[in-house]
């Protein structure tokens, strides 16, 4: 009986996957995937423009699309952007996105040695492979997790929120104290507007249009895009010199053979990317460095890393593209973004009336599976685009001067924040958020925890107050927060991630004391 239902489930899932494949191979959706991948690559290849920005800048294009097309486009943008970052990492020695920081370590030395094409092809193969691994994890893990999500009551959602905040604060660079303060700041911003429980009007500064609270996408566009362009002006970024590379015969096959002959690195890095992606808030910027370190540790010739060997590129580029699929897993099941760009995809899901959770895998399965499979298709599309169009792309991208880039990004941020709900206050708020975001970053507060706080705030508030209400049957209502064994697991995870930054100190301390001896 039990086995039977399991079998039925698998058959149903197979049907959904096949349905998704047929959906994606329509002229319209395929075109959107290609267009999205290319636009993502263009933005990704521009130094300083991150994947979050790419998705945030291109989000207004999807406002009037149907949910499937909108998600397919943004997913492809995200995938393409992470890959595009490799071009500037290799050819300009500046990571196009923070996800490609590690790619500069070996990519640029390779290009200097005249092995530019080999480096690009290595990055391409690794990116496509990592991307597909992440997507496979997404397709097969998330329906299972969505079933588990049904067991999550209000108390569990509260603890998941706490877990997300502690982990991102301990993972981003800078001090843990500042990370958690930034997260609290984001949470406070999220409480502006109508209270979800009780209906009180809070913190509106007397402005009626703040009743609706701060629209997530508006805050995201502001926090991620405006500080970048202000930074360009502040540091007076000049366009950099691009290393050229020539096409050689046979390089393609030689590289492919080399990369695939060492599957260990490829698979290990892809799994690291997927797992880091699943962790709330931690994205490609962390995954690529972790994968690079692990690859060096596992290598027989660790001293060669950093001198321009393909293995370094394989590690970083497969890991950062695996983050794309991995990061979507908590997003579609729990509504918690695994990596910063997922935050914007979350906003789009909300906008389209798609609630993360089991519903996405039953009633809305057609949309969900088409979207997930399209990510895989985007990873494949990158290969020909990157190999044949890559040179042209870097050429074009590197000549856009700052004076056009700054107002050019500005115009997209304005469209994006206005068109989301046709509200002028939103545009003003977006710019304001950007300026605040820039100031806070200067003062040491990273935007990632702030954004995660913004998203997790309502989840935590609903969870906390609903639990309090459910707990009315106990003499101490807050007891309801800790009665469920599922809550215990989550609380343990919270404590673990809270202590995480101190493990580093501990390790250093032990090392120090043992060497002293």
């Amino acid at each position, binding site marked *: 009986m039990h086995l039977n239902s399991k079998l039925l489930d698998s058959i149903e899932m197979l049907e959904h996957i096949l349905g998704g494949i047929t959906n994606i191979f329509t002229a319209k959706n395929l075109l959107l995937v290609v267009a999205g991948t290319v636009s993502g690559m263009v933005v990704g290849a521009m130094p300083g423009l991150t994947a979050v920005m790419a998705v945030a800048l291109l989000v207004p294009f999807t406002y009037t699309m149907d949910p499937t097309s909108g998600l397919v486009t943004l997913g492809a943008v995200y995938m393409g952007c992470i890959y595009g970052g490799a071009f500037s990492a290799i050819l300009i020695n500046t990571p196009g996105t923070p996800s490609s920081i590690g790619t500069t370590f070996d990519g640029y030395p390779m290009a200097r040695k005249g092995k530019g094409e080999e480096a690009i092809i290595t990055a391409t193969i690794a990116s496509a492979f990592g991307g597909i691994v992440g997507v496979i994890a997404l397709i097969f893990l998330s329906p299972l997790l969505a079933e588990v999500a049904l067991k999550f009551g209000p108390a569990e959602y509260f603890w998941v929120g706490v877990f997300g905040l502690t982990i991102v604060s301990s993972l981003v660079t800078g001090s843990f104290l500042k990370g958690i303060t930034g997260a609290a700041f984001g949470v406070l911003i999220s409480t502006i507007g109508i209270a979800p429980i009780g209906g009180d009007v809070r913190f509106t500064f*007397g402005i009626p249009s703040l*009743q*609706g609270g701060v629209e997530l996408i508006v805050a995201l566009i502001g926090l991620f895009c405006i500080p970048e362009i202000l930074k360009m002006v502040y540091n007076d970024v000049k366009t950099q010199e691009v290393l050229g590379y020539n096409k050689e015969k046979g390089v393609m096959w030689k590289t492919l053979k080399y990369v695939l002959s060492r599957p260990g690195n490829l698979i290990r890095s892809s799994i690291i990317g997927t797992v880091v992606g699943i962790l709330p808030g931690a994205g490609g910027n962390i995954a690529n460095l972790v994968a690079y370190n692990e690859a060096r540790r596992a290598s027989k010739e660790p001293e060669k890393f950093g001198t321009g060997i393909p293995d370094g590129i394989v590690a970083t580029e497969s890991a950062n593209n695996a983050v794309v699929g991995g990061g979507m897993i908590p997003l579609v099941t729990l509504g918690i973004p695994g990596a910063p760009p997922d935050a914007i995809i979350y906003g789009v899901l909300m906008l*389209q009336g798609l*609630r993360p959770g089991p519903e996405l895998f039953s009633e809305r399965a057609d949309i969900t599976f088409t979207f997930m499979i399209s990510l895989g298709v985007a990873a494949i599309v990158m290969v020909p685009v990157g190999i044949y169009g890559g040179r042209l792309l870097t050429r074009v991208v590197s000549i856009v001067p700052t004076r056009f880039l700054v107002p050019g990004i500005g115009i997209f941020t304005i469209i994006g924040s206005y068109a989301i709900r046709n509200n002028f206050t939103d545009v003003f708020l977006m710019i304001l958020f950007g300026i605040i975001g820039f100031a806070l970053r200067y003062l040491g507060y990273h935007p990632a925890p702030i954004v995660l706080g913004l998203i997790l705030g309502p989840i935590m508030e609903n969870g906390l107050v609903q639990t309090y209400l459910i707990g009315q049957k106990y003499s101490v209502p807050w007891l309801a927060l800790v009665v469920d064994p599922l809550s215990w697991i989550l609380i343990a995870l919270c404590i673990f991630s809270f202590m995480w930054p101190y493990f580093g100190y501990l390790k250093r301390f032990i090392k120090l004391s043992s060497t002293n001896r």
Partner: protein
Amino acid sequence: MKTKVLRILPFLLMVIAVLVIPPGVQAGDYPSKPLTYIVCFNPGGESDLTARIQEKALEKYYGHDVIITYKIGGGGAIGWSELVRSKPDGYTIAGDNLPHIILQPLMRKNAGYNTLDLKQIYIFESTPDILVVHKDSQFKTLQDFIKYAKEHPGVVTVGGSGSNTANHLGTILLEKAAGIKLTYIPFSGSGTAVPALLGKHVTALMTYSTMAVRYKDKFRPLAIASEKRMEVLPDVPTFKELGYNVVEGAYRGVAAPPGTPDHIVNYLADVFDKVMHDPEVIKKMNENGFKIEYMKPAEATAFVKQKMKQYKALLEEMGLIKK
């Protein structure tokens, strides 16, 4: 240098001309332009669903395009405060929602609009409250439910869509009518509450008839808060039949900005009257569990006023507003 400037000059002039000349405003009989229909709630919610069902028929009877736009936030307040500031030319209307448009101005210092600012065009549907439990629940009838709640005051949790909504009021009315104490748990939107009952985190849901229809095979409806049984749910008794005077639900319609001329309001009311008598629309509304209403401007306004009195009294009794 100078010649270069001269060469570009005509082009620049053209650009300036394009910029400065305002877009032509056409005069003529109403309607001569597309109609903007503002939806104040998330896509996929009841308001959006209705607007999408009406769209085609609306274009047919209105005679021009209908543009559906979203102004979401504040439980609808953002859209309505925008509407009352729009030009009263009959080309901008918004879907509105009872009890929201009554409760918000009552309970907020500055909701951005007053209830009677919204000029009622037509009220076209209602979704009565309905009490549902999980299919596996120990409660088979309303009597079981009330008996248990009497014995265990405050232990029974009832989820619903938000605070100060029809679901919330329905729960309060049931508490009063049956003399029981329930714990109402607000969720953000009727859809968000559904997984809570699926995962058995709440005992029951006070939800809209639409949800009971959509989750027929997972939930068991106990009673519906309408005057008469609904056609799509023939087996569900009304609270009234069972001896509890609970009649509550959300009513939806469309409204125009204050100051919109009466002839335009009446014209639009006729259009909506035709839309709601369209067989295709009727079929879809019924399938989705909506109850169709036919309230023209005068009737709709009177209904809003009557509800205002009723809700004000109820809120004062609950101590939620000052007298």
